[in-house]
């Protein structure tokens, strides 16, 4: 942490560097510009983390539009080999509904004949479609949130991630600190194929994405953690940051052996399978194992000084 006073000459040099060199926040091999999850504006496709491992999970979906909408709900269970259960549901204008993953009901209150095991966890995707069995359409009227309440007394809550055809660069970052007593984590990541418009369903099974992971501590020391692959599989979907913030529900850490308490994790994409019509979804939660915890999306780097226009 250095206190610097920047003379105008130094500043001009910095700015010239920014304008001339390719903008990249850290590492990465380039060429993996993913669509970015949107959590600030409505979308037609929402992604939510859910978990029933000594947890309860609720996903709320709201149709903010003035039209009747049919949605396709897909629930991927990592604990069951990423098997999917799905159903269609109807939303009248201005309608909202909460899905309780332990007792799923349709928006009209009718129970669904779907039982998810207590050890289940994974990703829930809700997509506006043309009709039952139809394809996804770009009708950005959905907002939502998910709540994961742990039996030990804390809650992860955040807006569901929406699909937006836009791209940042190929580096994601996750902050961590223990000023509020955090001592465990849930770093959730998955590559979803056939995301966006024009498809009957998204695919989560069989996808994978590999990051080159590095931790930067509060003294700007960089610790290389090696490559880590996220996939819809045990030990690859919900993991920990490092030894200080191990995976809450067991499993590996991205930076095994590291004991930094304050810093940020930088993850640069180095490989992905497949590389078409996909979006990366990442959430990170920190908790103290007792009463406090919180979750939000991974950060992604801007494409550069010039923001890309978004298609929505």
């Amino acid at each position, binding site marked *: 942490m250095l206190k610097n006073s920047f003379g105008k000459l130094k500043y001009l040099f910095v700015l010239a560097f920014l304008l001339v060199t390719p903008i990249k926040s850290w590492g990465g091999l380039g060429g993996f510009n993913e669509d970015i999850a949107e959590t600030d*504006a409505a979308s037609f496709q929402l992604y939510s983390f859910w978990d029933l491992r000594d947890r309860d999970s609720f996903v709320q979906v709201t149709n903010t539009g003035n039209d009747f909408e049919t949605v396709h709900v897909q629930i991927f269970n990592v604990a069951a080999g990423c098997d999917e259960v799905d159903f269609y549901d109807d939303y009248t204008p201005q309608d909202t509904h909460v899905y309780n993953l332990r007792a799923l009901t349709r928006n009209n209150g009718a129970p669904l004949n779907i039982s998810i095991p207590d050890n289940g966890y994974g990703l829930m995707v809700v997509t506006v479609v043309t009709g039952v069995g139809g394809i996804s359409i770009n009708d950005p009227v959905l907002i939502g949130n998910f709540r994961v309440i742990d039996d030990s*007394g804390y809650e992860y809550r955040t807006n569901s991630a929406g699909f937006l055809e836009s791209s940042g660069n190929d580096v994601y970052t996750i902050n961590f600190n223990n000023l509020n007593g955090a001592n465990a984590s849930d770093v959730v990541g998955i590559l979803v194929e056939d995301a966006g418009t024009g498809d009957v369903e998204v695919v989560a099974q069989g996808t994978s994405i590999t990051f080159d992971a590095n931790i930067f501590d509060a003294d700007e020391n960089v610790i290389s953690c090696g490559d880590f692959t996220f996939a819809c599989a045990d030990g690859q979907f919900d993991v920990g940051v490092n030894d200080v913030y191990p995976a809450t529900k067991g499993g590996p850490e991205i930076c095994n052996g590291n004991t930094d308490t304050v810093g940020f994790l930088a993850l640069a994409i180095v490989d992905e399978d497949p590389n078409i019509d996909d979006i990366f979804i990442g959430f990170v939660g920190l908790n103290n194992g007792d009463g406090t915890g919180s979750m939000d999306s991974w950060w992604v780097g801007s494409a550069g*000084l010039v923001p890309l226009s978004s298609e929505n």
Partner: protein
Amino acid sequence: MLKRLKIKGLMVIAGMMLVFTFGLIERAGAQGPQACPTVPFSTGWISAPVVPILPPDFVAGLLGTFESSGGGVVGGLDWMYGAGGNPPSLNTTQTGSQLISWWSQKGGRNTTLQVTNTLDVPVAVHVQVLGEDCVELRDFCDFYTGLDTHVYDFSDIITNAGQDISEGILQGREGTVVVTPVEDCVLGTFFPAIAFNFLQGNVAISDPNDVEYGANVYARLADDTTGAFTCTTLTGDPGCSFQTIVPGALQKDFNVLPGSVAVGADLVVLQFADSYGVTYKAVPALSQIGEFIITDAAENQESCTPIVACFARMGVDEALPVSEDFTPPVPTPTPTPTPTPCTSDADCPEGFVCDTTGGVCVVAPTPTPTPTPGGGGGGGGGCAVAGPVGVGTAMANVLIPLVPVAFGFGVRMIRRRNGK
């Protein structure tokens, strides 16, 4: 005489603005500390149009709720969605130039803010901590080397550069914190804002009810509307400014867990305007928020009185009152059994002996166990029910420093009259 007329005119205008301001406060006070005070919806969504008055360049909202459930208190928070107008997009998932967040040291809360520079290039930042009246309470400079991160604890602020910042004025207050990258940052000199779309951050607000509100902060891009971004020092001109984020409406859905017995909520609206120049500053702005339209899961809909504010925090409705009105349930006391009269131990049930002095059965004393080697482990317990929250109604503070504006209006009006 003309001079006296001018002064009179100024005083009249200033007085009118003061009356207007206090009228706004009264309207807000009459509304109560909830957006929709008499509406009982526990599950639904709320939408509020944003109508600029003293035009802002940034408007956003957050909704946090917590509730007593399963013997503990759980809660969470996130930003409201923006719709229409100049809506947000990717502002809490993509790095940007300016970071913005709610902060609170009110009612026993404490805020920590982590700021990260994701670029391997150093940057100076100007941190402004604005109060409920959107006036700056504290500001300071800080420096980040490339790929640097730092956490500000609002109960004891130490900068990344190691400087101890006086934060006493922040305690018991709340508002908006703005982190702006600047050309240079030495207090006492001037520092214009620069484009530096590589900052990100997280805020955590811990509450005495053992709840943590945590979220990514807002990251506002330095915008390029011309498509040929050559601007580095931001002037506020088109193509050389921060992104305008003023949605046509703020929207958020909410729900209460099955079986919850008490709920508290914080619906927060914050905004400011950009003041560019040799020194960039986030300055007060004013908008009407609402009418609030609240809809439940059966699409029953109610509309509620709008507010006019720069910064506001309130509850949602009757089912989700403002957090200060959260009262955790009191455990039901175990009834005291009626003592059994006795003359000997034989008259008493198992586990009891006869107190012949009082003539009633009492619990038999437990013999002291022989100590055994080794120790038992203690498990982390669930969250104990928190003590009662300090009671009091938190009101949105709509005090805006309109008097200088009033003088400005007064001067302009007088000039127009003279120009006829």
